[in-house]
């Protein structure tokens, strides 16, 4: 069962909400609704489910409604319509007391600009949620300390937020959210205010923490690289609507529409794509059946200067070059084994583009994608470049 199930969740800002709602149901665009009613559509009928232990990333450019959406989840902003089911309970409809209870016990939030209380020490900040719950003072301190140690700030408990760097402040923000031991962590552009190196550290740390904690995390970001790094699934938002939900790969490889494609264009693909995505079906010859003559014919047909050699079970044996095969034919050598070269440049299916680069850079021949000794595909230089340029030639190979 999903931890969070969102159905038809909308937020309209403005005065003629009823009119705007009707237009929205008819499928009128955001701009048109603004023109006709003066209302702004913040979130347009969003629906999705988040499974337990999942990192669900909501991504979009500024103004796409992602920050509004996350605030609808814990009702910092009142939804106009739709439902937010958390453990089967519709938060959009519960009374204030129940809502407070959910906020105290089930959902915590981490904010973009940290939102630490400047008049409280780090320890008091981390213990804020516990204090609000009315936990006993000793227990508060103990839990807040544990939480701070979890994020590596055990030594700073008596400092004030302004004495800490941005990265450390956000760790406090994270510790404060974790101290409540919530089921769901809402992270609103939590790392966006940090500089790139720190941001990467924080992403790694979040993933490490997540590996142990298995929280359900809803992470808002405008940075696709970040989304791809940490998301199990990604929802892409545009103009208040969710335009695509999928795994990082699905979004990159099969963008649902032009908008997603455009978004994806700028991504540093080298970090996301792996050998499997860009390899193609290899031309091979079977060492048990074929000799140099066949090898040469095959290379001529395909216009290539080397060819991989396998056995009947696709186990990679090596490769032969056109020059060697030609010499062999002249010298009437029948056995491929005599001209077989075995200095094969190989990568695995999940090798990332960055690593493929290093291999392909000084390899005179296409590199082989090998798993358990079997040849699955080959990668030519052109494919790497095409993939990095995002020219749509990236198709999952069925090899």
């Amino acid at each position, binding site marked *: 069962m999903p931890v969070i199930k969102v159905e038809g969740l909308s937020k309209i800002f403005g005065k003629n909400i009823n009119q705007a709602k009707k237009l929205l149901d008819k499928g009128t665009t955001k701009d048109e609704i603004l023109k006709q009613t003066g209302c702004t559509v913040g979130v347009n009928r969003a629906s999705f489910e988040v499974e337990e232990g999942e990192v669900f990333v909501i991504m979009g450019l500024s103004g796409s409604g992602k920050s509004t959406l996350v*605030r609808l989840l*814990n009702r*910092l902003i009142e939804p106009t319509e739709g439902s937010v089911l958390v453990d089967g309970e519709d938060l959009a409809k519960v009374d204030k007391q129940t*809502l*407070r*209870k*959910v*906020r*105290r*016990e089930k*959902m*915590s*939030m981490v*904010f*973009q*600009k940290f*939102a630490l*209380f*400047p*008049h409280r020490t780090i320890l008091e900040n981390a213990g*804020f*949620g516990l*204090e*609000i*719950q009315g936990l006993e003072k000793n227990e508060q301190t103990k839990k807040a300390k544990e939480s701070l140690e979890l994020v590596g700030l055990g030594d700073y408990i008596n400092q*004030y937020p*302004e004495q800490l760097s941005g990265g450390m402040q956000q760790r406090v923000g994270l510790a*404060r959210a974790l101290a*409540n031991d919530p089921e769901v962590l*809402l992270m609103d552009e939590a790392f966006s205010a940090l500089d790139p190196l720190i941001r990467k550290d924080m992403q790694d740390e979040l993933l490490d923490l997540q590996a142990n904690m298995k929280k359900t995390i809803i992470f808002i970001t405008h940075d696709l690289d970040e989304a791809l790094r940490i998301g199990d699934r990604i929802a892409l938002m545009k103009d208040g609507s969710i335009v695509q939900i999928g795994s990082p790969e699905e979004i990159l490889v099969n963008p649902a529409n032009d908008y997603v494609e455009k978004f994806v264009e700028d991504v540093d693909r080298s970090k996301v794509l792996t050998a499997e995505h860009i390899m193609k079906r290899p031309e091979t010859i079977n060492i048990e059946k074929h000799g140099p003559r066949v090898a040469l014919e095959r290379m001529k047909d395909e216009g290539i200067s080397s060819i991989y050699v396998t056995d009947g079970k696709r186990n990679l044996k090596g490769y032969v070059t056109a020059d060697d095969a030609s010499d062999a034919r002249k010298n009437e050598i029948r056995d491929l084994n005599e001209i077989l070269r075995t200095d094969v440049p190989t990568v695995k299916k999940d090798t990332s583009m960055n690593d493929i680069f290093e291999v392909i850079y000084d390899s005179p021949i296409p590199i082989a994608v090998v798993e358990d000794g079997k040849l699955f595909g080959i990668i030519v230089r052109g494919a790497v470049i095409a993939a990095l340029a995002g020219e749509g030639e990236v198709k999952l190979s069925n090899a």
Partner: protein
Amino acid sequence: MLDFMEKIKIAEAVSAFTDWITDTFSFLFNPIKNQLGNFMDWFSDKLAAIPPIIVILIVVIAAFFISGKRVGLPIFSLIGLWLIYNQELWEELMFTFALVLVASILAVIIGVPFGILMSKSRTAESIITPILDFMQTMPAFVYLIPAVAFFGIGMVPGIFASVIFATPPTVRFTNLGIRQVSKELVEASDAFGSTGSQKLFKVELPMAKRTIMAGINQTVMLSLSMVVIASMIGSPGLGREVLSALQRAQVGPGFVAGIGIVILAIIIDRFTQNLNTEKKK
């Protein structure tokens, strides 16, 4: 052209209204007048009974610590207070101080809750703001008239007029301070499930403290200025010295009493300001 209507009887209406209030609420005004009057007499007598040297020492030592162990304010306090003592205005100084203290405390007790109310409700803000404008722009002397009607003459009407005159800054700054608390911090406190009062006392008021203190500083200064004016309806203190010098056209004594007020004003101002900055980490 403009005489299409008789003169509207505003003055008469206000007088009648004030009379009505005086009669109707006399059951309320009389005990306030007696109780507060007795308290003020007792309090100012006690203050005046403390040996001046002790008061001066306490002020100087407090000034030293409050101003962050600097010597400027303590030295000024020492010389200033000694000068007032030397001019035989000590008792007047104590009366004035007692009035300012009580009026300010009342103004803050009344002002802060109204400020909170204003910050929480736009309706309240739109109702209270013009009232505050009215209270602050109405010439201060005008408050003396109903004050006398309600409470007779003496210290109590002086306090009443001072409270009316001095409350607005506390209300305004409390409102402003709470509204200035960053939206993210308010969201954070909501997101962790704070109740309204948890949010107010754990986040909003502590965050707004500096702004509210600035308002209180203004309130204290305004109540000092009003306490001086209130000498016209019989409030004792330095103001009365100024007034009597004015009535007799005595420049010298008037100047001396005026200097006394200036010294008191500066000391009070620096004290309240430094209380505000002292907590800064």
